[in-house]
């Protein structure tokens, strides 16, 4: 039987011999900690192929506000439906996990909570504050939903002073209706712009999935739109279909094309660009902070 993926869509799985369960020891340690603290990760929710690699390095992207999303994006495998009430103790548990995992850079994201009056902004605020209180040196990156464009919500998140605010455009405008129904390209772009207007010293970041049927010219246009609003960090990766009920992959982009996009983005003077088949918004997010933020603060 031949694999249905091109040769570059292959990850390595290393099985540590000392572990009876057959999984890498570090992977299980991370998994056990998350389960003990009853925390969710986008790594698991999105069936991320990098999970093994990241968990082995004791890193994970925390997903707050429960694991049920009120939006119905066609690329994403996070569960959809009616979410549970907000868990007020979740921020403290995230803070404990960051400490236990000894993270230098943490990424905190969430499901979209269109059902909440503040769209979940106060939970982001509390989580950043709690994490900071017992991990004073950690770099905090929040990957936020669009908060339905609420300036108040964005303001509240920024008050907690995360170092990096990410919001993913995900795809080109012509595919929004198909890929992100319920979202708007313009609104997402405005949100990133607003972050810079309100707090110009916070780094902004966005991510794109390629392979959904977008044209090269459209990708270049998105890059230009992002630079125009002073977005600092851009990541691009291959869209991978989580299940047969999600959007199909239209094209597997070869690594060489990802490299080309990276060069173009660097020419446009993004501060940091990551581009490759397995690149995800939060994949090796600490590479940015170790190169830029540490340098600035020390």
């Amino acid at each position, binding site marked *: *039987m031949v694999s249905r993926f091109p040769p570059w869509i292959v990850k390595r*799985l290393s099985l540590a*011999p000392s572990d009876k369960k*057959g*999984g890498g020891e570090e992977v299980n340690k991370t998994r056990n900690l998350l389960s003990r603290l009853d925390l969710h990760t986008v790594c698991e929710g999105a*069936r991320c192929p990098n999970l093994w690699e990241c968990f082995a390095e004791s890193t994970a992207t925390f997903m707050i506000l429960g694991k049920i999303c009120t939006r119905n994006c066609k690329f994403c*495998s996070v569960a959809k439906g009616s979410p549970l009430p907000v868990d007020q103790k979740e921020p403290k548990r995230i803070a404990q996990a960051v400490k236990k995992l000894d993270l230098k850079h943490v990424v905190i994201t969430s499901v979209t909570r269109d059902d909440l009056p503040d769209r979940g902004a106060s939970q982001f605020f509390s989580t950043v504050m709690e994490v900071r209180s017992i991990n004073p040196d950690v770099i905090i990156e929040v990957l936020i939903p669009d908060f339905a464009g609420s300036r108040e919500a964005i303001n509240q998140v920024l008050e907690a002073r995360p170092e990096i605010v990410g919001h993913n455009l995900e795809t080109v405008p012509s595919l929004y209706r198909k890929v992100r129904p319920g979202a708007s390209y313009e609104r997402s772009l405005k949100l990133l712009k607003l972050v810079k207007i309100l707090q110009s010293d916070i780094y902004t970041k966005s991510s794109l999935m390629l392979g959904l049927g977008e044209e090269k010219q459209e990708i270049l246009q998105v890059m230009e739109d992002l630079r125009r609003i002073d977005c600092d960090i851009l990541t691009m990766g291959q869209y991978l279909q*989580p299940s*047969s009920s999600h959007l199909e992959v239209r094209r597997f982009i070869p690594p060489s094309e990802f490299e080309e996009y990276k060069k173009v983005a660097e020419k446009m003077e993004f501060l940091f660009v990551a581009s490759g088949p397995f690149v995800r918004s939060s994949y090796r997010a600490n590479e940015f902070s170790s190169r830029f933020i540490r340098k600035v603060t020390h």
Partner: protein
Amino acid sequence: MKEIILPDMGEEVKEATISFWHHEEGDKVTKGEDLVEITTEKASFQVEAPVSGVLSKISAGEGEVVKSGQVLGIIEE
């Protein structure tokens, strides 16, 4: 004897398919080399040989759907 067990690929990934074995039963294998390729909905994974030895048994053949925790094969050290 070391059982090669399909690791837990994540809460949401319940099963995977064996794409192909890089070795046949009776072959010598070296720790760290590619042993078997498995495919989930999202990607392919090369499972490395966890120890050196002889691949004495292939328990899950090519095309077979396997679950987390299932024994894929055995290496005699």
